[in-house]
């Protein structure tokens, strides 16, 4: 081992240790928001935030089934009690009415400011007379005790009216003191998590706590064993999907690994060589992670998952090296031959992946950094480290018996050119015909959530009165006051829409904290003590009320009149504070109000009415359709990815052009690649399927891996033992790729089968197309160096 090689080995070892050291200190995140765009538009920021951590995304809907209603009620109470002690949940509702005194007091004390029905007329002589006459009627009715305690404070009945308003249209059926579904077969709970729905680690922890608490409650209640628990919600689905994904990836990558290891063992007949095959890719992955960690300060879980997939190409590097090394030939000699091709291959792949660096999605940028650094390190390790690790024991791999036949096949592959052109023309036609309808931009159709789970979610959502996950009304304004005024106007319109059955209820921040203008208006409606006392005296003339009865009413009104207006800090109770915080969003220079809706039946009508509503100057109000909006987001995401991929292709072409200084040689490399991509798209869309963003990712990988094949064919020299070995190494590399990714396509999860299927089909087609189109194109194109190996 010469000095230079020793230096390379030492540098490599130091590098590995450093990488491991850095990675051990790296925070890994699973926050899906890294894959949402960092949009500068305020309205879109609100949308993204709602998608990420809106109230709806934090809810777990819980249904208890089977067993007797009494048993379920008991479990519901125990469960709620246990969940309320856990930090992960901010609010647990099961109908047991455990709302704190601070919250009740706020509503009771401020009833004249909070009730939208408060007008000056109510406190005039006539208004009070009407109220007192009705009070008297109610006192003589069965409802008398309902009023008796509060009547002296509240003869105009503000508190009762307010209670109805604050219920917001959610009607819960209660049995044995807890919520049950309309058909009495389910006992219901609603849990709001502290963590947003996308924080899957936290969601998983909360879910586990929920399951444990349920199991404990089951045990402590007689007959509890027969009760089943259903839990749904965005976070719950996220956790479920992740678990399914982990499961699939584990199973399928184990199968694929076994296949690849078996194949390589047959080819190499050496465990040492087999394990050395992994050295470049492992080194590359570690370096890639380190680079991402140093650049961003954290690594996203998805970067690791997809990144390792994307640099799977690095396994090929070792295969090219080993399979092309003759007995007693020495790895260095092989490297001397294949290095220029390998180097160009990495450069081409890097250009393809570099496009990701310009993405507005931080997740894409991380992937770009990871793959570029990973591939560069992997190819360097193949070039400078692997030969040194080999020298002592490795004298080349055996010559495979089928190699001559394979080479012969490649030489004769050109007869397939006409059929290939016909197939290609067909594919171009197919793709062309469908070009307007090629992409799938509906998030739901890509959702891995089963129809059964979605059905359960819908049923529980309507039973618990949890807000619609699809539609929300969003109002924005430059300041909180304007915003609260705008939401008050919107509330008026929504109330009307409830009467026309376009929805069944809604919530709005101005219910809990009216705008200052509204507060002033309501306050102005309250007469001074003297006037009120006179009005009251005249109004009760002839009625049997004792004169002193309403002293508390006079005092309460005066207190409200003198009090400072309500502000955010007036809400001291936890439940209403939390509610308000979830409805009011502050952004730099902007406030947004989120108004959740219940049972939206006629979204178009709501959107129309809101569009016509004259909002406050500076404020906007609109109905947001999260599904359409997120589809649009996905569309935008996919378009960006497509644009970046196209740019990457152009850069690849430019790099090849600069390298070869020949249009025809560039074409020789790109033609099979282009043909493979088009045919892959045609195959994927054969049954009317549309392409997802995952297919696009797969195509990116096809270009990265397939370009290496094309470069080897372009290099030519497909004769003699070197030619056989080149052919075998390409076949071996491709079989490994097809195995590894093909197995993934068996998964039911869109992202896995999308990428898996695309890469398996695409790389195989790249190899075949390269063999058919390039076998002697290189020579006919007049590249003299290509004809003679080395």
């Amino acid at each position: 081992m010469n000095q230079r090689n020793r230096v390379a080995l030492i540098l490599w070892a130091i590098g590995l240790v450093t990488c491991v050291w850095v990675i051990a200190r790296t925070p890994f995140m699973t926050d899906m928001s890294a894959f949402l765009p960092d949009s500068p538009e305020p309205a879109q920021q609100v949308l993204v935030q709602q998608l990420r951590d809106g109230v709806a995304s934090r809810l777990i809907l819980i249904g208890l089934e089977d067993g007797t209603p009494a048993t379920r009620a008991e479990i519901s109470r125990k469960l709620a009690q246990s969940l309320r002690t856990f930090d992960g949940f901010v609010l647990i509702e099961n109908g047991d009415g455990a709302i704190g005194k601070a919250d009740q007091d706020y509503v009771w004390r401020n009833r004249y400011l909070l009730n939208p029905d408060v007008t000056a007329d109510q406190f005039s002589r006539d208004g009070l007379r009407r109220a007192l006459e009705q009070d008297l009627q109610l006192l003589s009715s069965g409802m008398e005790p309902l009023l008796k305690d509060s009547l002296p404070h509240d003869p105009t009945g503000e508190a009762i009216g307010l209670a109805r308003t604050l219920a917001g249209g959610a009607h819960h059926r209660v049995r044995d003191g807890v919520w049950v579904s309309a058909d009495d077969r389910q006992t219901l709970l609603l849990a709001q998590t502290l963590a947003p729905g996308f924080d899957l680690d936290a969601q998983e922890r909360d879910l586990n706590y929920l399951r444990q608490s349920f199991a404990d409650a089951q045990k402590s209640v007689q007959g509890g064993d027969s009760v089943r628990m259903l839990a749904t919600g965005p976070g719950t689905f996220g956790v479920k999907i992740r678990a399914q994904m982990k499961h699939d990836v584990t199973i399928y990558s184990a199968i694929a690994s076994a296949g690849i290891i078996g194949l390589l063992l047959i080819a190499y007949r050496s465990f040492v060589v087999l394990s050395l095959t992994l050295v470049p890719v492992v080194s590359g992955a570690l370096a890639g992670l380190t680079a991402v960690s140093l650049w961003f300060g954290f690594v996203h879980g998805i970067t690791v998952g997809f990144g390792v997939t994307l640099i799977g190409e690095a396994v090929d590097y070792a295969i090219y090296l080993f399979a092309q090394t003759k007995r007693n030939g020495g790895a260095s000699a092989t490297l001397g031959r294949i290095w220029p091709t390998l180097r160009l291959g990495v450069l081409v792949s890097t250009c393809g992946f570099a496009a990701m660096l310009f993405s507005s999605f931080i997740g894409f940028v991380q992937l770009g950094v990871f793959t570029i650094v990973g591939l560069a390190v992997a190819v360097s390790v193949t070039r400078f480290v692997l030969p040194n690790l080999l020298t002592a024991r490795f004298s080349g791999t055996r010559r495979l018996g089928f190699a001559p036949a394979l080479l012969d096949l490649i030489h004769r592959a050109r007869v397939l050119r006409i059929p290939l052109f016909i197939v290609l023309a067909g594919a171009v036609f197919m793709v062309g015909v469908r070009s307007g309808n090629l992409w799938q931009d509906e998030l739901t159709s890509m959702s891995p959530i089963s129809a059964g789970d979605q059905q359960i979610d819908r049923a529980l959502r309507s039973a618990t009165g949890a807000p619609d996950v699809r539609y929300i009304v969003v109002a924005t304004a430059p300041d909180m006051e304007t915003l609260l005024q705008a939401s008050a106007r919107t509330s008026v319109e929504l109330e009307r829409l409830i009467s026309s059955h376009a929805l069944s209820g809604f919530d709005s921040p101005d219910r809990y904290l009216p705008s200052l203008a509204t507060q002033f208006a309501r306050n102005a409606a309250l007469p001074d003590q003297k006037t009120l006392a006179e009005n009251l005296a005249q109004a009760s003339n002839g009625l049997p009320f004792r004169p002193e009865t309403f002293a508390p009413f006079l005092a309460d009104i005066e207190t409200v009149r003198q009090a400072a207006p309500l502000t955010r800090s007036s809400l001291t109770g936890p439940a209403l504070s939390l509610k308000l915080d979830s409805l009011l969003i502050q952004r730099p220079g902007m406030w947004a109000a989120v108004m959740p809706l219940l049972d939206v039946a006629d979204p178009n009508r709501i959107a129309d009415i809101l569009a016509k509503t004259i909002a406050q100057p500076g404020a906007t109000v609109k109905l947001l359709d999260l599904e359409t909006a997120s589809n649009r987001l996905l569309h935008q995401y996919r378009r960006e990815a497509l644009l970046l991929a196209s740019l990457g292709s152009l850069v690849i072409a430019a790099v090849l052009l600069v390298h070869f200084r020949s249009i025809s040689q560039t074409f020789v490399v790109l033609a099979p690649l282009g043909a493979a991509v088009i045919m892959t798209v045609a195959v994927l869309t054969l049954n009317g399927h549309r392409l997802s963003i995952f297919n696009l990712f797969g195509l990116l990988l096809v270009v990265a891996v397939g370009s290496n094949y094309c470069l080897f064919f372009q290099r030519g020299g497909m004769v003699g033992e070197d030619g056989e070995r080149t052919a075998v190494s390409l076949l071996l590399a491709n079989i490994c790729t097809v195995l590894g990714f093909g197995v993934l396509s068996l998964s039911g999860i869109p992202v896995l089968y999308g990428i898996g299927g695309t890469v398996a089909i695409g790389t195989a087609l790249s190899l075949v197309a390269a063999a058919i189109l390039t076998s002697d194109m290189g020579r006919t194109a007049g590249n003299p160096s290509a004809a003679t190996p080395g």
Partner: protein
Amino acid sequence: MKDRLAGLVILGMMLLPSASHAGEPVPGTSVWSLESMMAGLHQVKAASARFIERKQMAMLTRGLETTGTLRYVAPNRLEKITSTPAPETIILDGETLTGTQANGDHYTIALSDSPEVAALVEGIRSTLAGDLPTLRRYYSIDFKGTHDDWELDLTPKNARVRDKVESIRIKGVELVLKTIDVAERDGDHSQMIITPDAQ
């Protein structure tokens, strides 16, 4: 808010209708006991009556009087239909109480919403249904008198109910309820006088 409403509802339950029964004296009972009376009431399938209810309240200078009709259908339906001074309907059917007020307001209350409500409702309904175990679950019972002049004194066991209602005193003759007196903790008082319809 919810607690407050629940509290109000509890009070509302007190004035729930009670029906009178025109029943036969229980044959073969020489000793008139709580058990034998309840067994007799248990046999009653339906009954209807007119009522006059008088309330005395501290906040009013004079008493209030309402009149209307009561209906009971075994095992668990009660109707109280007030005709004067203003029309009002309250129907208790199984676990659900529905009411329509004079001003047209409707309300529905599930009894199981609160154990306190259930206590007050069962005070009257389980008496009518002759369901002694249920009645005992919610009340301490003091029963005295003879079969043609008996008195059932109910004292709520639940402390929260007791805060509002001191006692419910039902008087009757044989299997017919004649008066229901409700004494509230704050001194207010109501009496319902029941006149059975001819059977």
